[in-house]
C-alpha cells in the first residue's frame, strides 16, 4: 500500500461524488481566491506606483509659501541656481506661476470660462527632472521659449479639446494667440503640470510680465541623500525667510496614499481567512458524514487487510485532496481576478508567487486540520461493528 494508491483511491472516490466535491471545495476556493486577488491587486498597484515613481522616489519640490504674517513670500530669483549648487542635487528646474492669465480656445470664448487652466513659465529641463514626456509635438526649447509658444498639460489639452499638434494649432492666452507646440503625457508626481499651459520663462517675462520669479522648484537628489537635501532646502532657497518655503516629497505622498489604500488589504485578507475557516469546517463536516456513510466500506477495507492507520490516512488524504482542489481553484480565481482588475485599471498584472504559495499552503493546512477528526473516527471504528452496519 503506497502513496499513489491512496491518492488514486481518494481521487476516484471524489470523482464519484462530483457535486458534493465541488460544493465542499467552494468555501476554501472563495477564501483563497479572495486572498490571492487582494494580494495580487495590491502588488499590481504597487508595481504601477513604482513604475510611476521611477522606483527611487527622490523628487523634491520647493514651493513659495507665506511669511509669518500671512503675506505671500515668493522665492528669490537666485533660488534655483543656489539649489543647483547643493552637491547631491542631480537636476533642478523651476516653474513660475503667471497670475491673472487665462487660456481659451479662441478670443470668442468668454474670459470667465478659464477651464481652471493655469499658466506656468517653465524651463526646457522640466521634463527631464520630472520624468515626464510629450504625447504629441515637442517640449519648449531655447528657441521656442522666447516666442509665443505653449505646451499644454494632459488635462489642460483635454479641457481645451486639443488632441493633436498642427502648425496652425493656437490658443488665446493673455490677449494674444500662442502656437501650441506640444501636449504632455500625464505627470503623476506633479499633477499641477497636467492642468497648466507652459510657456518659456523669456516669453513669460517679455509677453506676460512675470519678472523671472519662480514659484515652484523641482529637483532630484541622489536617492540616499534625499532627507539631508530636504533639510537644507529652505535656507538655500530663501535665506531671508526660510520658514516661508514649503518643501515636499511628492513620492512619499503617493506612497502614503497607496498605503492608505492597502489598509483595505488587511480587511479583505481577514474576510478571506474567515471564508477559508468556514470552508475548512465544511470539509470537516462532509468528511464526518462520509465516515458515517461509508462504514461498510471501512469494514470491508479492514477485512481485506487495511490497518487502522491506513483507513485513517485514506480519509485524511481525501480531506487534503478536497482542500487542495479548493486551493488550486482559489488561486486560479484570484489570479484571474487580479488580471481582470489590472487590465481594467491599465496596470501591470502582478500575482506574487509568495502569495500563491501561501494560499495553497493555507489550503493544505486547513485540509489536514479538517481531516484529522474524521480520519481518527474512521480509524477507531471496530471492523466487526463497521461490517454489521
Amino acid at each position: 500500500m503506497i502513496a499513489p494508491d491512496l491518492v488514486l483511491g481518494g481521487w476516484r472516490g471524489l470523482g464519484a461524488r462530483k457535486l458534493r466535491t465541488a460544493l465542499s471545495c467552494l468555501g476554501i476556493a472563495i477564501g483563497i481566491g479572495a486572498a490571492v486577488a487582494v494580494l495580487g491587486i495590491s502588488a499590481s498597484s504597487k508595481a504601477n506606483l513604482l513604475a510611476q515613481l521611477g522606483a527611487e522616489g527622490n523628487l523634491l519640490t520647493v514651493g513659495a509659501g507665506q511669511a509669518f504674517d500671512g503675506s505671500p513670500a515668493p522665492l528669490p530669483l537666485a533660488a534655483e541656481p543656489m539649489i543647483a549648487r547643493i552637491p547631491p542635487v542631480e537636476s533642478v528646474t523651476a516653474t513660475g506661476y503667471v497670475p491673472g492669465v487665462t487660456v481659451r480656445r479662441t478670443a470668442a470664448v468668454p474670459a470667465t470660462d478659464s477651464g481652471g487652466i493655469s499658466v506656468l513659465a517653465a524651463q526646457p529641463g522640466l521634463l527631464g527632472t520630472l520624468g515626464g514626456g510629450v504625447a504629441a509635438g515637442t517640449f519648449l526649447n531655447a528657441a521656442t521659449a522666447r516666442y509665443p509658444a505653449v505646451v499644454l498639460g494632459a488635462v489642460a489639452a483635454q479641457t481645451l479639446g486639443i488632441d493633436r499638434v498642427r502648425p496652425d494649432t493656437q490658443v488665446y492666452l493673455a490677449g494674444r494667440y500662442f502656437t501650441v507646440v506640444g501636449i504632455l503625457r500625464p505627470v503623476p508626481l506633479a499633477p499641477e503640470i497636467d492642468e497648466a499651459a507652459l510657456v518659456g520663462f523669456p516669453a513669460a517675462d517679455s509677453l506676460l510680465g512675470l519678472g523671472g520669479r519662480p514659484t515652484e522648484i523641482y529637483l532630484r537628489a541622489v536617492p540616499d541623500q534625499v532627507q539631508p537635501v530636504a533639510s537644507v532646502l529652505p535656507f538655500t532657497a530663501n535665506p531671508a525667510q526660510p520658514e516661508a518655503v514649503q518643501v515636499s516629497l511628492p513620492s512619499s505622498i503617493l506612497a502614503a496614499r497607496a498605503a492608505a489604500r492597502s489598509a483595505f488589504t488587511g480587511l479583505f485578507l481577514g474576510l478571506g481567512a474567515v471564508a477559508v475557516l468556514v470552508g475548512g469546517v465544511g470539509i470537516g463536516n462532509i468528511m464526518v458524514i462520509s465516515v458515517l456513510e461509508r462504514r461498510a466500506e471501512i469494514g470491508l477495507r479492514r477485512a481485506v487487510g487495511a490497518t487502522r492507520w491506513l483507513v485513517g490516512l485514506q480519509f485524511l488524504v481525501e480531506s487534503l485532496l478536497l482542500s487542495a482542489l479548493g486551493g488550486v481553484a482559489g488561486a486560479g480565481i484570484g489570479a484571474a481576478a487580479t488580471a481582470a482588475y489590472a487590465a481594467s485599471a491599465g496596470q501591470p498584472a502582478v500575482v506574487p508567487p509568495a502569495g500563491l504559495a501561501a494560499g495553497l499552503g493555507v489550503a493544505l493546512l486547513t485540509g489536514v486540520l479538517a481531516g484529522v477528526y474524521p480520519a481518527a473516527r474512521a480509524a477507531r471504528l471496530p471492523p466487526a461493528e463497521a461490517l454489521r452496519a
Partner: protein
Amino acid sequence: MTAVLQIAGAGKTYPGSPPVTALTDITLDIHEAERAAVLGPSGSGKSTLLHVAGTLERPDRGGVRIGGRDVSALSDAELSRVRARRLGFVFQQFHLIAHLDAVQNVALGLLYRGGPARARRAAAVDALDRVGLGHRLGHRPARLSGGERQRVAIARAVAGRPGLILADEPTGNLDSVAGQQIIELLAGLAADGTAVVVVTHDPAVAAAMDRRIVMQDGRIVADEAVS
C-alpha cells in the same frame, strides 16, 4: 491434514446491562480443503464466531490460531497482515464499492498485501475469469445482477489465494438460481485446497458442505460430518 483455523475455548461477552454472552467455550478446528456450514437460529452467535475466526474481533477468553500461528497477542497491524494474506471474506451484502468497476473491486482485495498495481490488476482479472465473469471486467456493481455481484465478491476473496474463506450468509440476498451458482462456486474452492466456512440459514448451502456445525445460545450443540 493441516489445520488452517484452530479455536480453543473461545468466549466473547459484550458489555452492557445485562451483558450479552455471544460465544461460550467454542473449540473448533478447520482443516485444509474442508467445507463447513455453521447453522443456527438468529442470535446464536454464528456471526460473532465468524468475526472471531476472521480476527475482526478478539475473543475475551481462549485462543485463535490461523495457519498454526497464535493471533491473540498480535497488534492491529499484524492482524491486518494476517487478514490480507491468509483470509478471504464474503458477505451477504456483497460490500462492493459502487464507483469501482469489477476489476477494481477485486483488486481492492489485494491492495493491502502490497505489490505493484499491474500485478494486482492481473490477479484480479484472473480471479474474475475463475468465477466466470471474464466478460464483465469493466462493469460497475450497479450494472451487475445480484448473483454477479456476489461472484465479484467471491473473486475478491479468492484473488489472493488465501487458505480460508469465511462467508456470512452468501446466498441470503439471492434468488435460488443465483444462490445455486454461488454454492457451487464456494464448494468448488476446496479443489485448490482452500477451506471454506459458511454461516448460513440456507439448507441448500449446508447440503453442499462436508461438515455441519450447529450453534445455539453461543455454544456448539452439534458438529457432524455430512455423508
